[in-house]
C-alpha cells in the first residue's frame, strides 16, 4: 500500500528492519466488553485458531489504520491478573512476556477497561504498564459508568498514567474512530506511571531481573515486570507450548521464596496492596461520584433469581422450557426434513435402474445422511438455549445456585457451567472448564462432562424410543418421560463419578470458589444466531463428509464380498460380508447385553460419533429389508430377528441400548479435545475405559435382571 510520504518516512526511521505494521494485543478483565470491541474493530477479518498444546482459542484479527494500513490485533483471553491461576491466564501472561514461539510478542497493548468498575480493572492495567510497551487504555462501558453515577475524567487519567486513554462504548460503536486514530500513531507514548516497589522487595526484584536478562534473554524492562510478576505468581501455572524459565531463575525464585517463608512475611500480599494503594490514589483523582450507589437493576433481578426459593423455581422453569422445546417444538421442522429426504430417496429409487449404484445412493448415501440431518432442529434448539443463558448472564446465576448441590460431590458451582453446556455438546463444555482454577477440579469436571447427555445422543434415544413404543397407542408423555429418564441417568452418573473421583483419584482440600456475577444483559441474538449457524454448519459438514463416508464404507463392507449364491437372502448376504464377519467376532462380548452382531457393527462405527449409530442402522437394516422402498428405519428395526426367530429389538434391548449410549464414550472429537486439554493420552484413555466399562456393566445388570424378570 502506498503511503503519503510524510507518514511513511519518519516511521521508517523508527522501525528497525523491514517495515511492518505493529502487532496489537487486546487484554482485559472478563466481561469488560473486550470481545465486542474486538469484533467492532476487526469486523469479520478474524482468524480463529488454537494455541498449540492447549485448547485455548487464539483469535487474530485485522484492523485498518487511518491510512488503510492493516494492523494485526490478537485477542487474548480475559484475566484478572497477569499472575496466572488458570491455563487461560497463563496463555495471556506468556504471550505478553514473549514466552510463546507460536505467537509474535505484541508490540503494543490495548487494555480494555470496564469503566463502571475502574479500580478492579486498573489492577491488570497497572501490571501491564510495567511491561514498558506502548499501551492504549480503552475506557469501555462509559454509558454504564455514567448511569451508575461515576464521572470519569479520561484526560486526568491520561495525565497520571502517561499513556493514551480513550473513552468508548463498544456496543454502540462509540469511540472506535478515536481508537483507530490512536492505533495508527507511529509514536505512542510510553507509560510515565511510577509506583514504588516496596523497599524490602527491591533486592529480590533486582536479583530476578538480572537472572532473567542473563539466562532467559529478556530485555531489562520486560525482565523487571516479569520479576515482579514472579514474586506473586511463583511460576505456578505452566501451559504446554510456552518456553519454560531457565533453571537458574527458578532456583533464585525458590531461594527468595524460602527465605520469606522463613521470615513469615507475605510479600505477595504487600505487592498487591501497594498496587491497590497506587490505584486508589489515582481513582480518587479521576473519578467523581455524583451519588451514593444504590442497588442496580441487576441487584434487583438477583434478589429474585438467586433467591433460595424463587431462584430454584425459575431455574426449574428454565430447564423445563429447555426440554419441552427439544421434544415438542422440534417435531415440526424435523418432520419436514424427514419428508423431503424420503421423497428424494423415492425419486432416486424410481428414476434409476436396479443395481448396486442405486443401492449405494438410496441405502448408503440418502438413508445414512437423512438419519442424521433430521436431528438438526433439536441440536439448534439446545445451542440456542445455552447461548441465551450465557449471553444474558444467567449462566453465572445457575452456577451460583448449583454451588451447594455441587459441593456435596466435592466440586463447586463453576463446574456446573461446563456440565450444563455439555447437554449441547461435550466439546464446548470441556473447553469451558478452563475457568476452573484448581487443576484437580478441572480434571474431574473434564472426566465427567461427557456423561451429560449431549445432543448427539438424541438421535439414538429418539430412534430407540420410536422402536420401543408404538407411536399411535402410547402417549407423548411416556416418550418424553423415557427421554428425561435418560438425561437423569446421565446427570446422576456424572455427579456420582465426580463424587467418586474426588474421593479417590483426586483427593484435595475442599474447593474454594470466587466467581464474578456479571450484570444482566439483553441477549445478543446476532451473536447467538452466529454460534448456532456455526454449529449447524459443523454438524452438516460432518454429516456430509465423514458420516457420509462411514455410511458408504459400511454399505460397501456389508455388500461385499458377494454371497456365492446370487439368490441368497439379504440376511445371508450381510452375514457373509466383511461387516458381518467383523460383527460376529464382537458378538460374544455384547451378547450378554442382548445385542447381536449387527448392533455391534453400529457400536463400532459410532465410536466416531454417537449419531453414526442411526445412520449405520439405516444402512445395515436398509440393505437387509426386502421391500425396495426407503422404509423407516424404525420399521426395519422392529422386524429384525435373531437367527432363531426371536425379536431382536425387544423393549428391554431398546432400553438397554439407550442406557449403553448414556454411559459409553463414543465420540472421537471428545477424545481429541480431552487429549489436547490434559496434554496426555492418559486421561482420554482412562475416560474411554471407565465410561465404556461402566456402560457394559450397567447394561449387563439391566439386561440380565430384565430377562430374569421375564421382559
Amino acid at each position, binding site marked *: 500500500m502506498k503511503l503519503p510520504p510524510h507518514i511513511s518516512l519518519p516511521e521508517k526511521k523508527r522501525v528497525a528492519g523491514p517495515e511492518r505494521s505493529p502487532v496489537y494485543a487486546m487484554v482485559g478483565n472478563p466481561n469488560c466488553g473486550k470481545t465486542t470491541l474486538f469484533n467492532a474493530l476487526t469486523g469479520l477479518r478474524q482468524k480463529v485458531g488454537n494455541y498449540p498444546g492447549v485448547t485455548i482459542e487464539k483469535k487474530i484479527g485485522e484492523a485498518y489504520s487511518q491510512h488503510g494500513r492493516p494492523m494485526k490485533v490478537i485477542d487474548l483471553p480475559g484475566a484478572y491478573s497477569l499472575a496466572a491461576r488458570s491455563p487461560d491466564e497463563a496463555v495471556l501472561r506468556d504471550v505478553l512476556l514473549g514466552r510463546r514461539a507460536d505467537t509474535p510478542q505484541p508490540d503494543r497493548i490495548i487494555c480494555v477497561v470496564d469503566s463502571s*468498575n475502574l479500580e478492579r480493572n486498573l489492577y491488570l492495567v497497572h501490571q501491564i504498564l510495567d511491561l514498558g510497551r506502548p499501551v492504549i487504555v480503552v475506557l469501555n462501558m462509559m454509558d454504564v459508568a455514567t448511569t451508575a453515577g461515576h464521572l470519569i475524567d479520561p484526560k486526568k487519567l491520561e495525565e497520571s498514567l502517561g499513556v493514551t486513554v480513550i473513552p468508548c462504548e463498544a456496543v454502540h460503536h462509540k469511540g472506535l474512530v478515536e481508537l483507530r486514530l490512536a492505533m495508527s500513531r507511529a509514536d505512542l507514548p510510553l507509560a510515565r506511571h511510577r509506583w514504588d516497589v516496596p523497599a524490602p522487595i527491591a533486592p529480590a526484584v533486582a536479583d530476578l531481573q538480572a537472572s532473567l536478562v542473563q539466562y532467559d534473554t529478556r530485555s531489562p524492562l520486560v525482565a523487571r515486570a516479569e520479576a515482579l510478576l514472579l514474586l506473586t505468581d511463583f511460576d505456578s501455572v505452566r501451559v504446554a507450548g510456552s518456553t519454560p524459565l531457565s533453571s537458574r531463575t527458578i532456583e533464585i525464585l525458590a531461594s527468595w521464596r524460602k527465605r520469606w517463608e522463613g521470615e513469615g512475611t507475605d510479600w505477595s500480599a504487600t505487592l*498487591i496492596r501497594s498496587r491497590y494503594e497506587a490505584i486508589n490514589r489515582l481513582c480518587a483523582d479521576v473519578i467523581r461520584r455524583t451519588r451514593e450507589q444504590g442497588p442496580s437493576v441487576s441487584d434487583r433481578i*438477583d434478589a429474585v433469581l438467586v433467591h433460595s426459593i424463587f431462584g430454584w423455581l425459575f431455574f426449574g422453569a428454565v430447564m423445563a422450557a429447555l426440554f419441552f422445546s427439544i421434544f415438542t417444538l422440534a417435531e415440526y421442522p424435523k418432520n419436514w426434513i424427514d419428508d423431503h429426504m424420503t421423497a428424494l430417496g423415492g425419486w432416486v429409487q424410481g428414476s434409476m435402474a436396479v443395481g448396486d449404484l442405486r443401492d449405494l445412493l438410496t441405502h448408503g448415501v440418502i438413508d445414512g445422511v437423512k438419519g442424521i440431518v433430521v436431528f438438526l432442529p433439536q441440536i439448534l434448539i439446545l445451542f440456542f438455549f445455552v447461548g441465551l443463558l450465557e449471553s444474558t448472564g444467567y449462566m453465572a446465576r445457575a*452456577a451460583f445456585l448449583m454451588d451447594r448441590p455441587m*459441593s456435596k460431590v466435592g466440586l463447586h458451582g463453576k463446574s456446573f457451567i461446563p456440565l450444563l453446556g455439555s447437554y449441547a455438546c461435550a466439546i464446548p463444555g470441556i473447553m469451558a472448564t478452563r475457568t476452573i482454577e484448581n487443576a484437580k477440579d478441572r480434571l474431574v469436571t473434564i472426566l465427567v462432562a461427557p456423561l451429560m447427555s449431549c445432543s448427539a445422543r438424541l438421535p439414538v434415544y429418539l430412534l430407540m424410543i420410536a422402536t420401543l413404543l408404538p407411536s399411535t397407542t402410547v402417549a407423548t408423555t411416556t416418550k418424553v418421560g423415557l427421554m428425561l429418564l435418560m438425561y437423569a441417568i446421565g446427570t446422576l452418573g456424572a455427579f456420582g463419578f465426580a463424587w467418586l473421583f474426588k474421593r479417590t483419584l483426586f483427593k484435595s482440600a475442599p474447593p474454594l470458589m470466587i*466467581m464474578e456475577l456479571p450484570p444482566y444483559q439483553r441477549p445478543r441474538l446476532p451473536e447467538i444466531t452466529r454460534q448456532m449457524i456455526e454449529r449447524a454448519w459443523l454438524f452438516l459438514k460432518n454429516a456430509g463428509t465423514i458420516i457420509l463416508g462411514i455410511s458408504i464404507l459400511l454399505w460397501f463392507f456389508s455388500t461385499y464380498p458377494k454371497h456365492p449364491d446370487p439368490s441368497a437372502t439379504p440376511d445371508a448376504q450381510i452375514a457373509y460380508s466383511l461387516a458381518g464377519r467383523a460383527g460376529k467376532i464382537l458378538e460374544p462380548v455384547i451378547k450378554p447385553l442382548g445385542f447381536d452382531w449387527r448392533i455391534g457393527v453400529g457400536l463400532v462405527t459410532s465410536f466416531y460419533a454417537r449419531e453414526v449409530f442411526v445412520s449405520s442402522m439405516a444402512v445395515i437394516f436398509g440393505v437387509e429389508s426386502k421391500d425396495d422402498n426407503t422404509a423407516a428405519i424404525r420399521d426395519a428395526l422392529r422386524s429384525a430377528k435373531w437367527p432363531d426367530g426371536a425379536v431382536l429389538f425387544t423393549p428391554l434391548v431398546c432400553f438397554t441400548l439407550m442406557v449403553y449410549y448414556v454411559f459409553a464414550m463414543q465420540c472421537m472429537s471428545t477424545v481429541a479435545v480431552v487429549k489436547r486439554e490434559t496434554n496426555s493420552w492418559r486421561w482420554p484413555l482412562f475416560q474411554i475405559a471407565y465410561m465404556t466399562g461402566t456402560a457394559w456393566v450397567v447394561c449387563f445388570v439391566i439386561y440380565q435382571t430384565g430377562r430374569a424378570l421375564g421382559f
Partner: protein
Amino acid sequence: MSRPPFNARMPLCQLAAGATARICEITGDESFVQRLREMGFGEAALVTKISGSKTSLCHVNGTRLALNHDAAMSVLVELLPLGAR
C-alpha cells in the same frame, strides 16, 4: 472516626444479608487468597453481603462476587458500626 472498643470478628459466611463489614483477615490457601486480593477482595476493603448462607453473594468495590462456603469461611470481617459508612 470513633469506634466502639472492640468489634466482633466473624467469618464472612456468618455476616447477615444486607450488612456491610470491613475485611480484616484472609487465611487459607495461598494462591486463592492472592486471587481474592487481586480481585479487590483484600484487607480493608468494604464488603456488603447481598444474600446467601452457604454460598455468599457480596458486593465489593462495585462488583458482585460469589464465594462458596469454604471460601467465605476463610474471610474474617468486622462489622462496621452503624452509620460509619
